[in-house]
């Protein structure tokens, strides 16, 4: 030990000196990165003196309800404007939201339609503006200002969503904020469309706008706009939608100012604050009606979008009294060079959708409903990634995190007499759609996606089948749009669209809602390509409920070496309308037929080549032997399931021609199956002796905890792990390098390396 390291009691600075040190540090901050104090907190800000004062003046429940309805209507109006005028395809189908935030930045009221998740995150950038720009003489927050933001690390799902944020003043005093957010798509990342799966660091993820001022005197600053346009593939879209979001905010501002005139600013402040406080209190009351219990589940991500591997999303949900705690510790460590990580605020935003969309849809939409619910994660994990980790495909982690939450919550709700919705098996959770980009038939550079991501199959409920292709888990009020309209702008056709994929099922007493097939082929451009960004080609990304099964898995199929438009012209009878027929019958001579996982990096396509995928099914509910035989026959008639599969799984006996049910034979077959279960089932204690293993299997690249031991996170093999609270880098090799090494090993084994020097 040397002398320098010897601890010596230093002179403690006085209070005055401390203040001076603090001022020195804040004056010399070199970079205002995301603020952990803001980013880790999702609860409401403390009530301010101004709010106290406003509530003292006005707290009448009827007036509050009236003002809230008016502000709500204003938000809905702003939402409608963005949906109607927005240029981004996302805007047209409801991938949009507007909201009003308190002076301290909390989201008080959001539009009824749209993606609440976005709005639930915008309070972070507003709080950043309040903390850093409000009193900064070089920036400031003034009437007529507007701020733009997209960097997820400052509070966003992913960088493809852009927000416009306006402060609202009354006689020079800041009263509240309004904001509008759109899934814009293009953002200048290494792949078109704004959600690159190839991103290996945040530097690959395109525009990284921390909150900054882009509007003054209600006008967009042209120099900054031009810089933003110059940084993306769709400069026109960037401009159009900034204008649309600005004008939507201005409309909401107009509605707020009407309230100032009729009821005064205090009434508005009081309404915003009490709405949030009342919702928060009501949520605690509702939680206290649930049983005190701990529910565990896990959901598996089967890829990083670059390679297949096993990535665990571990979830333990505990309810005690009026506390509800999501514990995601034990989930996979963050990937250093894969973009499927999420910031924890994204996870929380998505979990808030479990409650506001599926459990308590009657509550006013805002930040308050999730405010009292607690979330625990490991640092530097896929559920709470660091500043340096890429997260452009955070959807993979927030969606599987959502499903873990949805699955766990259902087990609390069943016994609770007070219900606001039906107990619900998990809804499908992957964005099975085509992301596209290139140069269109009109010579325009485009990068975006098909709205089919909104066609996720719904989970079954306690007393009915799930609905097909219903809605995405992030927006229960969204639409899948008209593909034909999209085709006016893009140089490809969906040759098969909205046709249910037969036998891609989630069986149960009530089956999951099914997904449909999409077959696309480029037609009028030599510079056009597709990508897909989903997990679930090897392992279903869900669990079933109460004996119901999850969905199956969904691959990507490609047919190359064919121009299907020529086929359609010359021998149209060769074209088939299902993946099943095209892949099994291989009707186009000389073509290649291949299958892949659903993480296809951006790939240029040739005219008439087929890319084929299917949307997924929501999970099933209950024991499939209890399914009404008539429901099984209806599924056959509707082309959801083939006769053979129906008979084998559901043990329903019917006439193959007339489909008339033989009820007696069905009852006998089902009875026999129950007996067969008793014969093949092994008592639990005996089963686990042979089944349970102390470590993950060596044939899988496994990430996350194994069993209950959440302190040890595996990082790709049984021999490689880290302590949950001690972050370590977690690099993945390039899949092509992995493949080259495999092939070289084979060549070496054959002695065919040709004497190549090493």
């Amino acid at each position, binding site marked *: 030990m040397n002398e320098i390291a010897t601890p010596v009691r230093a002179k403690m600075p006085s209070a005055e000196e401390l203040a001076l040190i603090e001022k020195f540090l804040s004056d010399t901050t070199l970079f205002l990165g995301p603020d952990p104090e803001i980013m880790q907190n999702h609860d409401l800000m403390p009530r301010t003196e101004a709010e106290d004062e406003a509530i003292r003046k006005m707290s009448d429940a009827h007036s509050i309800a009236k003002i809230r309805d008016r502000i709500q209507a204003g938000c809905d109006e702003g939402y409608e404007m963005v949906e109607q005028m927005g240029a981004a395809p996302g805007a047209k189908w409801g991938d949009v939201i507007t909201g009003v935030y308190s002076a301290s930045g909390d989201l008080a009221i959001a539009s009824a339609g749209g993606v609440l998740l976005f709005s639930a995150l915008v309070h972070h950038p507003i709080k950043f503006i309040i903390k850093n720009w409000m009193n900064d003489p070089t920036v400031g927050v003034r009437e007529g200002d507007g701020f733009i933001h997209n960097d997820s690390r400052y509070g966003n799902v992913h960088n493809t969503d852009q927000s416009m944020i306006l402060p609202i003043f009354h006689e020079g005093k800041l009263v509240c904020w309004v904001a509008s957010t759109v899934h814009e798509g293009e953002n200048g990342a290494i792949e078109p469309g704004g959600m690159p799966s190839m991103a290996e660091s945040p530097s690959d993820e395109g525009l990284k706008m921390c909150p900054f001022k882009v509007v003054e005197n209600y006008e967009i600053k042209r120099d900054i706009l031009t810089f933003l346009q110059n940084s993306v593939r769709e400069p026109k879209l960037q401009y159009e939608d900034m204008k649309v979001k600005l004008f939507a905010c201005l409309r909401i501002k107009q509605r707020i100012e009407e309230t100032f005139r009729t009821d005064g600013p205090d009434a508005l402040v009081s309404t915003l604050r009490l709405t949030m406080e009342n919702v928060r209190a009501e949520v605690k009351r509702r939680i206290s009606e649930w049983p005190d219990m701990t529910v565990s589940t896990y959901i598996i991500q089967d890829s990083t979008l670059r390679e297949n591997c096993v990535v665990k999303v571990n979830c333990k949900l505990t309810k*005690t009294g009026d506390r509800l705690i999501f514990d995601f510790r034990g989930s996979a460590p963050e990937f250093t060079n894969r973009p499927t990580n999420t910031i924890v605020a994204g996870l929380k935003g998505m979990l808030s959708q479990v409650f506001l969309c599926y459990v308590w849809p009657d509550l006013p939409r805002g930040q308050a409903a999730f405010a009292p619910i607690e979330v625990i994660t490991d640092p530097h994990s896929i559920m709470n990634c660091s500043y340096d980790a890429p997260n452009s495909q955070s959807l993979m982690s927030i969606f599987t995190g959502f499903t873990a939450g949805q699955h766990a919550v259902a087990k609390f709700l069943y016994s609770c007499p007070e219900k*606001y*919705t039906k107990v619900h098996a998990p809804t499908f959770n992957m964005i099975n759609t085509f992301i596209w980009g290139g140069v269109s038939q009109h010579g325009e550079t485009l990068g975006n996606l098909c709205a089919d991501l909104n066609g996720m199959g719904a989970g079954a409920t306690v007393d009915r089948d799930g609905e097909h292709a219903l809605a995405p888990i992030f927006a229960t009020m969204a639409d899948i749009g008209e593909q034909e309209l999209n085709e006016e702008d893009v140089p490809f056709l969906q040759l098969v669209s909205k046709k249910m994929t037969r*036998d891609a099922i989630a069986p149960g007493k009530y089956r999951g809602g099914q997904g449909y097939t999409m077959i696309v082929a480029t037609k009028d451009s030599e510079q056009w390509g597709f990508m897909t960004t989903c997990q679930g080609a090897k392992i*279903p990304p869900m669990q079933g409920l*109460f*004996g119901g099964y999850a969905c199956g*898995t969904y691959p990507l*199929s490609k047919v190359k070496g064919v121009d299907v438009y020529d086929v359609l012209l010359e021998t149209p009878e060769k074209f088939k309308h299902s993946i099943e027929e095209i892949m*099994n019958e291989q009707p186009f001579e000389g073509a290649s037929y291949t299958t892949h996982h659903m993480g296809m990096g951006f790939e240029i396509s040739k005219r008439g080549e087929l890319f084929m995928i299917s949307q997924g099914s929501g999970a099933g509910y209950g024991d499939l032997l209890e399914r009404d035989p008539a429901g099984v026959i209806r599924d056959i008639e509707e082309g959801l399931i083939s006769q053979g599969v129906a008979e084998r799984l559901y043990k329903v006996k019917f006439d193959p021609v007339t489909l008339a049910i033989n009820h007696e034979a069905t009852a006998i077959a089902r009875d026999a199956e129950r007996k067969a279960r008793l014969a093949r089932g092994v008592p639990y204690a005996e089963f686990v002796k042979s089944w349970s293993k102390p470590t993950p299997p060596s044939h899988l690249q496994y990430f996350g905890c194994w069993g209950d031991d959440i302190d040890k996170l595996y990082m790709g093999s049984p021999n490689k792990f880290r302590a949950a609270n001690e972050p370590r880098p977690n690099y993945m090799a390039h899949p092509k390098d992995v493949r080259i090494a495999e092939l070289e090993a084979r060549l070496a084994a054959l002695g065919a390396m040709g004497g190549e020097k090493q």
Partner: protein
Amino acid sequence: MKVLMTEYLRIDLDSEKWECRVCDHEIGPANKGYKEGMLVYDRDPREIHPPIIDPEKYRFTFSPDPEWVRILEYYCPHCGTMVETEYAIPGHPPLHDMQPDLPALRAQWAKREEIAKPVVGPEVLADQGHSH
């Protein structure tokens, strides 16, 4: 007093036992997981999610990969009802998925009437909308 916990399970608060709602079989102590009183079957996922495209020709077929995931099916040992499924990584210890706090449950239900039929929850009805 009995509390309906899932589609197929209830807890008898007096005996502190999990019970099957289909056949009334007493499954086991409610201070442990109900799965410990079940029969378990390690199901090949291809049997439930059949290949849609030819497994002889293709790597990905719409069937889960049986070396990557299995379906654990939990049956009531008396009536054979499938009480729960669990999509599990091969060898991953089964989840202790529900552990109620029994004293708290008893206290909560002391203030409630026993419920024989589960509460289904509200129907989603078409909005009557705004009319003049």
